[in-house]
Structure formats: structure tokens, C-alpha cells
């Protein structure tokens, strides 16, 4: 009986939080059109969310591309079709690894920082202070960060994929001797702009939306103590990773079919 009660309490709590999260999203979205007149606020946040994530995304993209090149080559060479290496590298990056790995890196680099920042602003009464100054923190603080995350993610994912393709090219063509012409021509022949590139961009936009939403809500909803903020930061990374991987399956099934 106690177990059932605990289960019920847990479920109710979770639904309540889910509801609060959606209301939060609604208010934030209502605050975004007003930002057109205050682009400076958004630019500031694109810097801390996007520009500061650039290094980790570029380096990771390079290495992921190089690993794909190496693994792909070793598998394909057995079938004598190492020219298809570029297709393997490009499709894996553009369809899956670009959006997904970028979103995971984003959660660790930018998402956790957003949560900690908002949580600490709450803990140090900065949000309450703004409210008392008749400034809505959802519009002034949260909405610009949301927009910045949503804008930055597809750009970061595109950079990740592009750098990754060059990483694969470096290993395949530079080190393992795949023909340079075949590398690029096979890729252009097999990678479709709408099917692969556009779908990849849509994926990363969805991930950007969700990752930023989770990070901001966790910060805004955090218990305003140092322990509460640290818990919220952890939750951001865990929940974002789960949400991104789960959504990736759903989106892949919708876009590329097969289910």
C-alpha cells in the first residue's frame, strides 16, 4: 500500500512538474517576439551559448569524423568498396552524429551553464529583484537565452558535420589513400539535400529547442540553494541526453521511415 502511495505521489509530482514546464515554455515563447526590438540581448546570449561552445564542437567533430573514416575504411576495404567511405562518413554525420552529438555536447557545455546561471540568479534573489523592479525575468532573462540556444544549435551541428567530413577526408584520402575525386563524387551522388541535409538541420533545431527548454526550466525551477542548483545542473545534463536520444529515434522513424 505504501509503495502504491509513493508511486502515486511520484507520478502526480512528475505530472505537476511537466505542467509547470509547459506553462513556462508558453510564457517564454510569448516573450520572444518582443526580442526583435532588443536583438542586443540575444546577441549577448548567442555569444555565451554558441560562440563559447564552438571550440568543443569543432574539436569533437574533427575526431568523430576521423574515427568514422578509420572504422569505415577498415570495414569497407573487405568488400573492395572503399570509395563508398565518404558516403558512410557523410551520412552518419549529417543524419545522426552531427545533430545528436552536438546536442549532447551542448547539454554539457551550454545547458548546464544556463541552468546554473538561472538557478543562481534565483538563489541570489536577482529574479525576485527584477520582478520587484517591474521587469519580467521570463522576458528579460529567459527568453533571450531560449532564442539564442534555438539559433545556435543548428549552426553548431552544421559546423560539427562539416568539420567531421573534413576529418573523414583527412583520414581516408590523406592517410589511407582513397581516391580524392571518388571521395567527393560518391558523396555528392549519394547524399540528398532534402532527404539528408535538411532533415539533419530540422533534427538539430528540434534538439536545440528541447535542450534549451530543459536547461532553462531546470534553472528556473531549481530549489534556490547551492545544493538545489547543483542537482538541477545534473538533471539538465541527464534529462537532455535522454530527451535527445529518445526524440532522435522518433524523428528518425518519421523522416527516414522503416517503422
Amino acid at each position, binding site marked *: 500500500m505504501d509503495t502504491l502511495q509513493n508511486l502515486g505521489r511520484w507520478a502526480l509530482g512528475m505530472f505537476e512538474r511537466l505542467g509547470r514546464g509547459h506553462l513556462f515554455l508558453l510564457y517564454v515563447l510569448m516573450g520572444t517576439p518582443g526580442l526583435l526590438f532588443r536583438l*542586443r540581448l540575444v*546577441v*549577448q546570449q*548567442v*555569444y555565451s551559448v*554558441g*560562440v563559447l561552445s*564552438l571550440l568543443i564542437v569543432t574539436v569533437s567533430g574533427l575526431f568523430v569524423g576521423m574515427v568514422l573514416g578509420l572504422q569505415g575504411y577498415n570495414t569497407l576495404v573487405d568488400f573492395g*568498396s572503399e570509395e563508398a567511405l565518404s558516403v558512410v562518413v*557523410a551520412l552518419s554525420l*549529417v543524419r545522426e552524429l552531427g545533430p545528436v552529438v552536438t546536442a549532447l555536447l551542448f547539454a554539457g557545455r551550454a545547458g548546464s551553464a544556463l541552468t546554473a546561471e538561472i538557478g543562481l540568479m534565483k538563489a541570489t534573489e536577482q529574479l525576485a529583484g527584477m520582478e520587484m523592479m517591474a521587469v519580467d525575468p521570463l522576458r528579460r532573462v529567459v527568453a533571450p537565452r531560449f532564442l539564442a540556444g534555438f539559433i*545556435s544549435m*543548428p*549552426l*553548431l551541428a*552544421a*559546423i560539427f*558535420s*562539416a*568539420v567531421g*567530413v573534413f576529418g573523414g577526408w583527412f583520414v581516408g584520402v590523406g592517410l589511407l589513400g582513397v581516391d580524392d575525386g571518388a571521395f*567527393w563524387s560518391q*558523396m*555528392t*551522388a549519394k*547524399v*540528398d*539535400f532534402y532527404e*539528408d*541535409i535538411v532533415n539533419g*538541420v530540422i533534427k538539430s533545431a528540434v534538439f536545440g529547442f528541447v535542450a534549451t527548454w530543459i536547461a532553462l526550466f531546470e534553472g528556473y525551477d531549481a530549489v534556490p540553494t547551492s545544493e538545489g542548483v547543483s542537482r538541477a545542473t545534473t538533471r539538465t545534463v541527464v534529462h537532455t541526453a535522454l530527451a535527445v536520444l529518445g526524440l532522435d529515434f522518433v524523428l528518425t522513424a518519421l523522416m527516414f521511415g522503416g517503422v
Partner: protein
Amino acid sequence: MLHSRTVEIGVGVFVAAGLAALFMLAMKVSNLSTFKAESGYAVSAHFDNIGGLTVRSPVRMSGVLVGRVSGIGFDSETYQAVVTMNIDPQYDKLPADTSASILTAGLLGEQYIGLDPGGDLRFLKDGDEIKLTQSALVLEQIVGQFLFSKAQEGAAAE
């Protein structure tokens, strides 16, 4: 707001790099650069079997890409597949009796339409149909034929 210049330059670089990456993915990695938005002319052909041919499969003549498959349909009177292909405008001197066959690139590669020029002095134009076609080779049928002929050889030798 302290270093607003640094911030703005950084964001500028970031957005430019992101757009450049997208552009590179679109033009260099994907086939967007090979689209010439229906500027060519369309010809159609009937096949008994198209095998694994799909929309956007290449159409080649002497190995050169001259167009792409733009549509695949089914003719319910002849029970044949109708393939429409879009030929790039610069290849406007294909003889009217050109034949089309469905070929495979390599042993397990993708399928494409190969065009063989005929000797007609008139040229194919928009809406024409290629009369001479050869269907895709289906591996099972070839293997079946091979076994059948072997069996016949065996029977004849006895």
C-alpha cells in the same frame, strides 16, 4: 556589455562559420549542386521490370550523367512500368531511336538507366517516348536461367 565589441565580433564569426558549414554541406556534400531545377526536357520509357530503380536515379549515356529519373509510374493497360526522366538541356541531340536499358553500377551497386544512341536523324524532344527498352536484370531469373540451361546441357550429354 563590458566587451560588447568582442561579443559582437565573436557572434559574427560564429554565425558566418555556421552558415558557411551549411553551405558547404549543401553544395559540396549533398547533391544540391547537381540540381538544375527541371530546366531540361522529359522523355518516357516503358520497362517490363525496373528492378531497384528509384526517382533521382542517374541517366547515363556512355557513362556520362545526362539526366535523372523524375518519375516512376505503372501503366495498367500494358502492365508495364513507366519511367519518366529529365534530360539536361545541353544534351538535346539524342537520336529519336535511342534505346534505354536498366543497368547496375558494379556487382552490387545502384541501378541507373543507360542510353544507347541510334542512327535516326531526328532528335528526341520533350514528351517523346523511348521505344526500345531493356529491363533490369533480376539476379534470381539469371541464376534460374543458368541452372535451367545447365540442366538441359546435362540432359543432352546423356
